């Protein structure tokens, strides 16, 4: 298969440089793909597709009744990130998460950042993710967001920008692990030739981090993963992570609060639970503290948490910083708490709540992306250049009605990666979501979920709106050490065989 007809277009291509030659980091892969006979790549893709179905790597789509399980389309051409570039991303993410944790803690305690005039009081108070119940809360080990999945994008200018922080319950990491698993079996030779940093130890890191949060004095803490249940769109991931970590997967009705502790119902009676990795939104975790009508949570959980007898990850209330208006302040937040400039820039953001920005946004709607402050998953947004005049006018009204709820950003020309379309490769737009764990130290998974907009020209990568995923290869400039990957194998003992009889 040849790349001769591949057109990088007017975009930054992750695989090919402006001269049309593969970037240094992508050369072994490009060579491998070029060495494949016609149709071979397509055959590999088909093998991958059927493996995904058989392994049951699925997500649920709400409101589709029977047959509602879908697989996330997987494209087998990976995105490659050079070692030096990753180094900068990693430093930038660590800095950002560190600062955001200090910010959230400040929000729920003394609010120095408001008093010092950096972030306006009303922005915090009106953030949908703000939880009054968390004021004065001291989460275990002083950490609020233990698991973060920051969305990064690259613009035509080659610069990497932070698009969203996702500080609540980011999903998708299971696809990273399963995609890698698939790729290793499809391209063993390329793995041998490239120094690709492994991601497979993420579940171990995750469990270590969760155990670190356990109440003092517990030597072997019991960790559980709390899921809304088998009908949740991310159920596969919950189950997968519980299995990979070796912890119990529980639903709300498996847990019960009694005598100031959380217990789970087992075949042998009740057992105490010390740490809960909860994949249920704040509003639903405890009907006594949050929404009364929640059937998913555990009544009384929040009281046990506040008393320090159980740890929750992430802490409730972190969503305050997921508000897209708060997002606009993050570079200033980083500067305020760390004294340094943010290593990873934000996408330039116009805050409609501010008179000057509002004016600009309303005048430039057809060239901007407009986002509702509290929506996610690609919902509630307007992509100006792809919208009709009526849609723009409709959004202008919505913005004028409630300026606090909207931000505007320039339409980014997301970078592209070659993607198999039919029997040939075409560029498709991608973003990247690395996962960050905050426990004893901050750990950034080398790689992450590369989401790809499979529709030609589309900029929306969300799985609910026609997105797919790719493996992400972060290259090492050093050879992968043995401790980082699988241990070396000892020599096998002699094999015994059946005695011959005549």
């Amino acid at each position: 298969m040849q790349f001769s007809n591949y057109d990088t277009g007017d975009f930054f291509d992750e695989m090919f440089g402006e001269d049309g030659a593969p970037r240094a980091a992508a050369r072994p892969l490009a060579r491998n793909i070029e060495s494949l006979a016609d149709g071979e790549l397509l055959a590999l893709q088909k093998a991958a597709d059927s493996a995904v179905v058989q392994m049951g790597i699925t997500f649920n789509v709400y409101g589709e009744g029977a047959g509602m399980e879908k697989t996330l389309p997987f494209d087998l051409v990976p995105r490659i990130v050079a070692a030096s570039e990753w180094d900068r991303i990693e430093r930038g993410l660590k800095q950002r998460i560190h600062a955001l944790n200090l910010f959230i803690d400040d929000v729920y305690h003394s609010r120095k950042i408001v008093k010092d005039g950096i972030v306006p009081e009303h922005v915090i108070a009106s953030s949908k993710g703000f939880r009054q119940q968390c004021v004065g809360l001291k989460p275990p080990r002083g950490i609020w967001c233990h698991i973060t999945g920051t969305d990064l994008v690259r613009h035509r200018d080659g610069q990497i920008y932070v698009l969203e922080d996702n500080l609540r319950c980011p999903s998708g990491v299971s696809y990273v692990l399963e995609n890698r698993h698939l790729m290793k079996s499809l391209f063993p030779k390329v793995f041998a030739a490239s120094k690709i940093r492994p991601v497979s130890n993420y579940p171990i890191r995750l469990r270590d981090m969760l155990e670190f949060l356990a109440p003092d004095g517990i030597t072997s803490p019991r960790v559980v993963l709390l899921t809304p249940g088998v009908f949740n769109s991310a159920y596969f991931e919950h189950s997968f992570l519980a299995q990979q970590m070796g912890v119990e997967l529980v639903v709300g009705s498996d847990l019960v609060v009694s005598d100031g502790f959380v217990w789970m119902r087992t075949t042998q009676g009740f057992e105490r639970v010390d740490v809960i990795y909860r994949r249920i939104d704040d509003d639903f975790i405890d009907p006594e503290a949050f929404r009364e009508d929640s059937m998913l949570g555990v009544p009384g959980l929040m009281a046990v948490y506040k008393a320090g007898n159980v740890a929750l990850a992430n802490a409730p209330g972190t969503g305050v910083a997921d508000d897209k208006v708060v997002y606009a302040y993050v570079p200033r937040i980083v500067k305020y708490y760390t004294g340094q400039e943010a290593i990873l820039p934000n996408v330039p953001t116009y805050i409609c709540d501010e008179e000057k920005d509002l004016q600009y946004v309303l005048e430039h709607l057809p060239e901007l992306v407009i986002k509702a402050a509290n929506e996610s998953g690609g919902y509630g947004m307007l992509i100006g250049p792809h919208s009709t005049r009526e849609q723009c006018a409709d959004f202008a009204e919505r913005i004028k009605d409630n300026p606090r709820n909207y931000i505007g950003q320039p339409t980014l020309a997301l970078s592209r990666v070659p993607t198999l379309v039919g029997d040939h490769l075409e560029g498709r737009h991608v973003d990247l979501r690395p996962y960050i764990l905050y426990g004893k130290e901050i750990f950034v998974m080398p790689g992450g979920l590369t989401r790809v907009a499979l529709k030609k020209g589309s900029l929306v990568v969300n799985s609910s709106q026609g997105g797919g995923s790719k493996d992400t290869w972060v290259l090492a400039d050093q050879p992968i050490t043995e401790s980082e990957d699988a241990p070396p194998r000892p020599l096998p003992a002699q094999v015994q065989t059946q005695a011959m009889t005549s």
Partner: protein
Amino acid sequence: MLSRVADSIYWMSRYVERAENVARFVDVNLHLMLDAPDGADQQWEPLVNTTGDHAEFEKLHGKPTQHNVIKFLTFDRENPNSMISCLRAARENARSVREIISSEMWLQLNKFYLMVNDAANQGIDSPHDFYSEVKLSSHLFNGITDATMTHGEPWHFCRLGRKLERADKTSRILDVKYFILLRSVADVGSPLDDVQWAAVLRSASAFEMYRKRHGRISPKGIVQFLLLDPEFPRAIRFCLNSARDSLHALSGTPLGTFRTNAEKLLGQLCSDLAYAHVDDILNGGLHEYLDNLQDSMNLVGTGIIDMFFAKRVPAPGKLRPMEKTQ
């Protein structure tokens, strides 16, 4: 382990076994019909009777024919005990405990379901090949379970479910023959009768093992073998013995004693079978004996649900914070 998880594993395992036995029921009847003399009326009604779903069947299909019985038992999504419904339920249960079972088990069960689902949508060319493949898929699932899952609590729940289900279904396979016999008393002892009994053995994959044990085909030998044999893995006694072993492994109650109703009932059943004589059973009526047996096994099932899966609430002040059983 979590009560909810134990519940799901137990039923996952039962449903896979149930689906396999549907294949056995249908396969045995297909063979019987092939061997029947010309014009012998096609007997498909007994099959519906033995599965215990005749009321449901009549409501949906009316008069039993080969076509609608096979459809009802195999591909009818409205029938909760059809093969496809069982596999769907098994897979849903497995999906809710994917982190407990091995990935290999999930993979096999998922493939199994997809295979039957495809057949349901596209139809089957050769019934025999299809039912053989179903049996094979189930064997593969059980083999994978035994070879890839730690033989701890979850595995014992698997085995408990599988063995209780199998005991129940073997008793029903024996019953199929009973219903057919009723209609052709004249054939007793004839070559045709031998053929029919051999088909019963084949449907329990028991033909060769029976030959090694008893040689000649005789109704008495077959009842002895499928009901009372302590070593043949589809024999009812064998199944109930290993179900009992798993139940006691789970509860920690020493064998030969009991603390719960389930342990008491299952122990009594095993003892009964150990001291039963085949002549007494046949004299008292095989069908009546099997009927009682099925009722008792249902009570054991209810006892197990009560013992492990029922949802309880802790009494305040009774729990000690440091109490852990791991």
